C-alpha cells in the first residue's frame, strides 16, 4: 500500500481536481507505459550486447556492455548512407507537401467554389489508398520517366498520402484564424502573396509545424513504396536493415542497433509537438 501512495503523490500535486480514484489511474498508466516501453527496452538492451551474449545467455541487461554495433553502423558507408537517403527524401517530401498544401488549405478554409466539398473528400480518399495497390503502378510510372531509384521519386510517391494529410491539418488550423484579419490586410494594401507570407503564415506557424511533423513522420515510417522504388542509390535505412541476414545467420546486435537509431529522430521531434499531436492525428479537427 505504501508503495502505491508514494508513486501517486506527484500526480495528486499536479491534478488537484481528481479525487480518490487517482491511485487507480496511476496504476493503469504505469502498466500501460510499461507495456509500451518493454519491447523498446528489449531492442535497446540487445543493441548493447555482443552476438555471443544475445544467443548464448538470457540476460535482462547487457553483462558485457558494448557499443560495437553502433560503431559498425556509423562507420560503414553502406549502413549510414541509408540514414542519409531516408532523411533526404523525407525532407524533400515535407517541403513539397507543404508548398502545395498551404495555398490549397487557404482556399478550402476561406472560400466556397464549385465542387469544393467533393474535392475535399476526394483528397481524403488518397489517404485511404492502400500502398500495396500503388506499389506496382508506381514502379512502372517512375521507371518510365527515368526517376527510378532517385530520392525525388520516393518524395513524390509519398505525396500520395502526405499532401491530403497536410491540406486537412492546415485547413483545420486556418479555420481558427478570423477572417477579419485577411480583410484588414487587403484594405491596408497588402497583395495576396505578401499578406500570406508576412501576416498569415506567422499566425498559423504552429499549424505549419504540426503539418510538417506529420509529413515527416509518415514519410519516415513508410517502407513498402520506398522499397519498391529504390534499389541502390536511394535505398532507405529500413530496407538496408534486411541485409543483416548473412550466411552466418542474423547479426542480431547490429539489427537491433539499426532499429534503435531509426527511433531517435521521431523521439527528438516529438517533444516539440506533444501538445498538438492529437490535433494533427484528428486532421485538424479537435
Amino acid at each position, binding site marked *: 500500500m505504501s508503495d502505491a501512495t508514494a508513486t501517486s503523490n506527484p500526480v495528486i500535486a499536479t491534478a488537484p481536481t481528481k479525487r480518490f480514484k487517482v491511485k487507480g489511474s496511476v496504476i493503469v498508466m504505469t502498466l500501460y507505459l510499461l507495456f*509500451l516501453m518493454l519491447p523498446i527496452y528489449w531492442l535497446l538492451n540487445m543493441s548493447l550486447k555482443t552476438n555471443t551474449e544475445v544467443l548464448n545467455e538470457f540476460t535482462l541487461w547487457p553483462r558485457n556492455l558494448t557499443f560495437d554495433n553502433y560503431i559498425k553502423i556509423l562507420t560503414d558507408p553502406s549502413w549510414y548512407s541509408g540514414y542519409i537517403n531516408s532523411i533526404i527524401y523525407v525532407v524533400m517530401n515535407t517541403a513539397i507537401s507543404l508548398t502545395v498544401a498551404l495555398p490549397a488549405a487557404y482556399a478550402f478554409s476561406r472560400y466556397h*467554389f464549385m465542387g469544393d466539398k467533393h474535392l475535399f473528400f476526394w483528397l481524403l480518399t488518397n489517404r485511404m489508398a492502400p500502398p500495396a495497390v500503388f506499389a506496382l503502378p508506381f514502379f512502372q510510372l517512375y521507371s518510365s520517366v527515368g526517376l527510378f531509384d532517385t530520392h525525388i521519386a520516393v518524395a513524390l510517391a509519398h505525396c500520395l498520402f502526405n499532401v491530403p494529410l497536410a491540406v486537412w491539418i492546415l485547413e483545420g488550423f486556418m479555420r481558427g484564424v478570423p477572417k477579419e484579419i485577411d480583410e484588414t490586410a487587403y484594405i491596408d494594401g497588402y497583395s495576396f502573396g505578401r499578406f500570406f507570407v508576412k501576416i498569415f503564415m506567422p499566425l498559423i506557424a504552429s499549424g505549419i509545424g504540426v503539418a510538417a511533423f506529420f509529413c515527416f513522420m509518415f514519410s519516415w515510417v513508410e*517502407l513498402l513504396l520506398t522499397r519498391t522504388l529504390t534499389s541502390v542509390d536511394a535505398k532507405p535505412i529500413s530496407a538496408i536493415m534486411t541485409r543483416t541476414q548473412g550466411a552466418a545467420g542474423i547479426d*542480431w546486435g547490429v539489427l537491433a542497433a539499426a532499429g534503435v537509431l531509426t527511433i531517435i529522430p521521431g523521439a527528438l521531434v516529438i517533444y516539440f509537438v506533444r501538445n498538438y499531436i492529437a490535433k494533427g492525428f484528428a486532421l485538424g479537427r479537435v
Partner: protein
Amino acid sequence: MEKTVNQKAWFLILPVLLLVAFSAVIPLMTVVNYSVQDTFGNNQFFWAGLEWFEEMLRSERMWDALGRQLMFSAIILAIQVPLGVFIALNMPKSGFWSSFCLVMMSLPLLIPWNVVGTIWQIFGRVDIGLLGYTLDALGIPYNYTQNTFAAWVTIIVMDVWHWTSLVALLAFAGLKSIPDAYYQAAKIDQASRWAIFRYIELPKMMGVLMIAILLRFMDSFMIYTEPFVVTGGGPGNATTLLSIDLVKMALGQFDLGPAAAFSIMYYLVILLISYVFYTVMTNLDKKGG
C-alpha cells in the same frame, strides 16, 4: 465561419490537383488498364473485359484473405477503441506527468513500420525474446512461426501496442475540451462516475472518436509491413492479409490482370466503408455546431 463564393480559389488548388493527378490518378488508371486486359508478355495486350474480376470473385484465395482481413480489423477495433478511451480517462490532465505520458505514448507511433515488426519478431522469439522466453519458462506453448493461434495473438498484440496510443491521444484531446462547468453540474446532481462518462464525456468525445475509428479502420485494413516482417503471412496462409496477398500476386508472381482487378475491389471496399464513417463524422460535426 462564413465563407464567400469565389471561383478563382481554384487557382490556389491547382498545384495540389496537378501533383495528386501525377501521383494518384495516373497510377490508378494503370491499374484499371491492367484489370481489363490480358498479356502474353512483350508488351502485347488484349482486351479481356471483366474476366479478371469474375475470376477474382470466384477465387477462394481472395475471399479467404478478405475474411482474415475483416476479422483482423474487427478484433483491432474491438480492443483498441475501448482500451484507448479507458487509457485517456486515466491520463493525468495537466502538468509534467501529462506531457510525460503524451511523449511516451507517442513513441510507438513514430517507429518505422518494419522496425515495429522487427521489435516484435525479436520480442516474441522463444530463444532470445523477453516475451517468448517468459511464456516458454512458464510452460505455455508459444511459437508464432508454427502455431496459427500464436501468430494471430502476436500480430494483434503488436498492433495494440503500436496504435492504441493514437485512440487514447484523440480521446484525451476530446476530454480536455469539456468545460469544467459540466463536471461541476454533474457533482451538484450527484451523478455517478458511470453517468458522468455516459452522458457527458462520451457524447463530447464522439467526434474525435469517430476520426479515431476511421483512421484505425483504414490503416488496419491496409496493413502490410508489420505482419509481413513478423510472420511473412504464415504459418501457411494463416496471417496473409489482403495487402500481403496482393503484393505476393503483383510483385511476386507478376499476375498483372488478377492483381489489378483485386486492387480495384480492395480499394473500393475501403472507400465504401470509409465513406460511411465520413458521412457519420460530418453529420456529428454539424450537430456539434
